């Protein structure tokens, strides 16, 4: 491996280009493989500059320089592309088949159901998920359906879930699934291109809708307000904490300051590179929105339906423009930011957002 002067090394680029300007999304991809990168309390740091030139750490970082077009081609081949929603085959309302799974999930329990089915049916032999509660999150390597259920429910901070990927490799897993935020989905796709870390063993990527993650200061606030034992947090509009039926509401404006800086320049609220993307419907809390993006994603959903793990309904046509508008606005906003330099977008795509008004 070629060694470089400090300023050209991968670690230095990661530090100067991502960590120092506070653009790290905390995905955890760079953690776990390398002895010099660690993460505690959802903060990632480089402990020592190894001076290795083309290091994996920078290459797989979703906030490192990313050739978006070629990455899309790797995932989808040449297909029609929707600049707002990303490549998609179908969009549904979906929910878990069993009431039990629905009740432990955030909305319809689709992520839990799909993960459990993928494990059971052999799509994957293990899956990286996020466990924890309002005291803190923790990445979990899951290889059983009971383990999947323990990770049900949304977490609103940036757990470095991908940091456990090497743990999965060391345990000999061959077909590893990932449930992740959009940044983690991008990282997973970049990891698949890195044979030195056995990235090709990532076999299924379930992406989440994400409008931004909170920094770990959220837990300090939650503790200060005595909410750390609440069993559910949600952001329908304002921030809602529920504890056995009792709700506490904190205005979103009060919480805005805790959004990670990295999330403000995120171009991808819907996990565009995932096999399937799952999120809130913003309409019916008993259901999820489900976007099928790849052939593999389509096969998973089809078989999960056939086996009763999930049930699907058409996405209501009157709601689709609302989703599109929200995503459009987010992308357009991000394109105007000076720190949005990590994605190499095709010029027509950039032009599309810049030349189109909000209400078109």
């Amino acid at each position, binding site marked *: 491996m070629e060694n470089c002067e400090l300023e050209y090394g991968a670690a230095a680029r990661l530090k100067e280009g991502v960590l120092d300007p506070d653009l790290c999304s905390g995905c955890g991809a760079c953690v776990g493989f390398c*002895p010099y990168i660690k993460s505690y*309390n959802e903060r*990632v740091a480089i402990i*020592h500059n190894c001076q290795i030139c083309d290091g994996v750490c920078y290459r797989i970082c979703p906030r490192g320089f990313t050739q978006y077009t070629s990455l899309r081609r790797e995932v989808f081949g040449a297909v029609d592309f929707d600049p707002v929603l990303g490549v998609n085959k179908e969009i549904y309302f979906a929910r878990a088949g069993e009431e039990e799974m629905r009740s432990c999930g955030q909305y319809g329990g689709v992520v839990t159901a799909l993960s459990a089915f993928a494990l059971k049916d052999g799509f994957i032999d293990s899956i990286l998920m996020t466990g924890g509660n309002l005291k803190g999150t923790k990445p979990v390597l899951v290889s059983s359906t009971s383990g999947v259920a323990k990770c049900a429910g949304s977490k609103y901070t940036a757990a470095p879930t991908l940091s456990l990927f090497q743990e999965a490799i060391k345990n000999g897993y061959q077909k590893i699934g990932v449930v992740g935020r959009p940044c983690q989905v991008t990282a997973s796709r970049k990891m698949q291109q890195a044979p030195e870390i056995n990235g090709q063993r990532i076999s299924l990527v379930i992406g989440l809708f994400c409008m931004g993650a909170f920094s770990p200061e959220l837990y300090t606030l939650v503790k200060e307000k005595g909410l750390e034992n609440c069993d559910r947090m949600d952001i329908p509009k304002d921030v809602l904490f529920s504890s056995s039926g009792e709700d506490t509401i904190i205005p979103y404006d009060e919480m805005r300051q805790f959004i990670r800086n990295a999330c403000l320049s995120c171009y991808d609220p819907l996990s565009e590179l995932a096999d399937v993307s799952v999120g809130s419907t913003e309409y019916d809390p008993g259901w999820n929105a489900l976007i099928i993006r790849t052939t593999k994603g389509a096969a998973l959903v089809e078989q999960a339906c056939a086996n009763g793990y999930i049930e699907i309904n058409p996405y209501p046509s009157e709601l689709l423009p609302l989703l599109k508008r929200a995503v459009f606005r987010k992308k357009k906003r991000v394109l105007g930011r000076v720190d949005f330099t990590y994605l190499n977008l095709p010029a027509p795509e950039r032009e599309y957002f810049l030349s189109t008004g909000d209400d078109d």
Partner: protein
Amino acid sequence: MGWKDAIEGKPGDLVLLNGNEAIARGAYEAGVRYASSYPGSPSSEITETLSRVPASDLYAEWSVNEIVSLEGATAASFAGLRAMCTMKADGLNVAFDFLTSMNLGGCKGGLVLTVADDPQGHSSVKEYDSRYLAKSAMVPVLEPSTVKEAREMAIKAFDISEQIKGPVLLRSVTRVSHSRGLVRLGALAQERKKAEFPVGQRFLTKTLFHMKARDRLIQAAIIFEECKFNYTEGPDRADTVIFCCGTSLLYAREAINILGLQGKIKLVKIGTTFPLPERFILSNLQGVKNVIFAEEIRSFIEEGVMLIYARHNIGNIRFYGKISGDISGVRGPFCGEMNPDIIIKAIARVKRIQYEAPGYSPETIVEFSTMLPPREYAMCPGCPHRASFWAVKTAIAVDSRDCIVAGDIGCYCLGAWDTGYNLFDSLHCMGAGPGIASGLSKLEKFGLKRPTLTIVGDSTFYHAVIPGLINGRYSGSDFLCIVLDNSVTAMTGHQPHPGSGISNHGRSTTAIPIEEIVRGLGIPCAITDPFENDKTAETISSTLREPGVKVLILRRECALVAARKHQHKKQRVYVDQSLCRGESCGCGRFCTSVWGCPGNIWDPVAGKAVIDEAVCAGCGVCATLCPAGAIIAEEVDK
């Protein structure tokens, strides 16, 4: 050889001792009954040796610090017994408040304060001259030149102390304390004094007693005029004289011999360096043209002799010393250790001799030195400090607020340099870390945004850290104090401390755990094992974010103590080279180029890591840190 001869040797035996053992033997022969010390190189072997004296003859103690040590020894003197208190130069500062107080009132039984200076700082962070402190405290000073004289002076020091009813300071230096020489043993004192503290006997400090201290010095000066430790060598009359003391006597002799100037230069050896024997000195200044001074560290006798010269009409003399710049080593005058070459250069200048030092030219030496691989200080294989430092480095990096690290004094000083990953931002004296951390934490309102952490040792904790913690909590400071607890005073030779629950004599005694003290102060205290490195780093990382003063004890026995106790490796550690990533991404030689344990070495043929099993202590920490899982630690049978 060693402590056995010093303690069990018979009168008349000729034995090989080091300077510290000789001082201990002298004290033993003089009938010392109380010996106390805080360990510090190069003085530690004195109390080590005296600890071997049967407990019926002597009370020996490793005290928590130098001031309580001197207080205890002085108490024995108050009760009429002979007592010796030993410390390194830095320790004299700690004891100084008491020394300057007790010396006014004086004492009774012979009280000898042995202070070992460390010119060049071989095992210290500073080199300084304790004679100036003795002068300031008005305590007479004896300074031995050889191991043999160290024993003689130790005995004489007790006599002088009892004559003047005040303490006497015996100043050793590293090259006396740690060199070996033949010593003819004398008989042990037969008299067995009883400890008595008669009703009505009082030892008080009063400003008026300043006069008592002054008069004691006058009395000492009279005794010193007739003292056999001051003598001359060479011709009776010579135009050039070298005034020397301590080991510089030997260097001066050697210099004269090398230059073939025997019979041409007179050596004046001063053994009683404070107060100086004025008449003896004057008699050796008469008719002299050139005076050269040879002494360790600063210009103590140089200043004294020049003052005597200035007060008398002796004629023209030129002085060559540190003040004139003529006595100067590679670090320049006043800094670094004396050696024969320094004196040869000065004599050559005075005598206008062309002298070419044998051996390589300075240019060649510089050329050769660039060919040597750079060598850093190294911590031992299996040293828990390395693991602790890696955890601290990791936690600080992840914390990302550029935490300031205030260091402290112990083996873990190495935290200031490469071996300790250059962690320390400050390093001073024992106990300085918490004070500095406390002070820095008050500066937030003036713009300082960096959090603060201090790293102290376990022995240091008892010695000087507790007041800093109390002050920190009392004043509302905000810092994390990490105590590296390896269960002994490791740097000075594994002396026990109050946490170890073992006395000087190796008997078990009440242990006072650090955590009980800390919690007693109302300060939160957690304990982790630095060998569980990831957990430790995570704990440091989260504790750093807590408000107020926090203590985290990183507890793991010193590798040397563990090796001595267990006598075998608990684990066999080896590298599976098929898994080793070597120089590739995801490692880049972590174990051999960053981690820094001498047990991790590089196999240049395979381009992979390997374990030097002869050196490896079997701790297995590198196995937990190897990112590829290529280092394997296996349990082995006894």
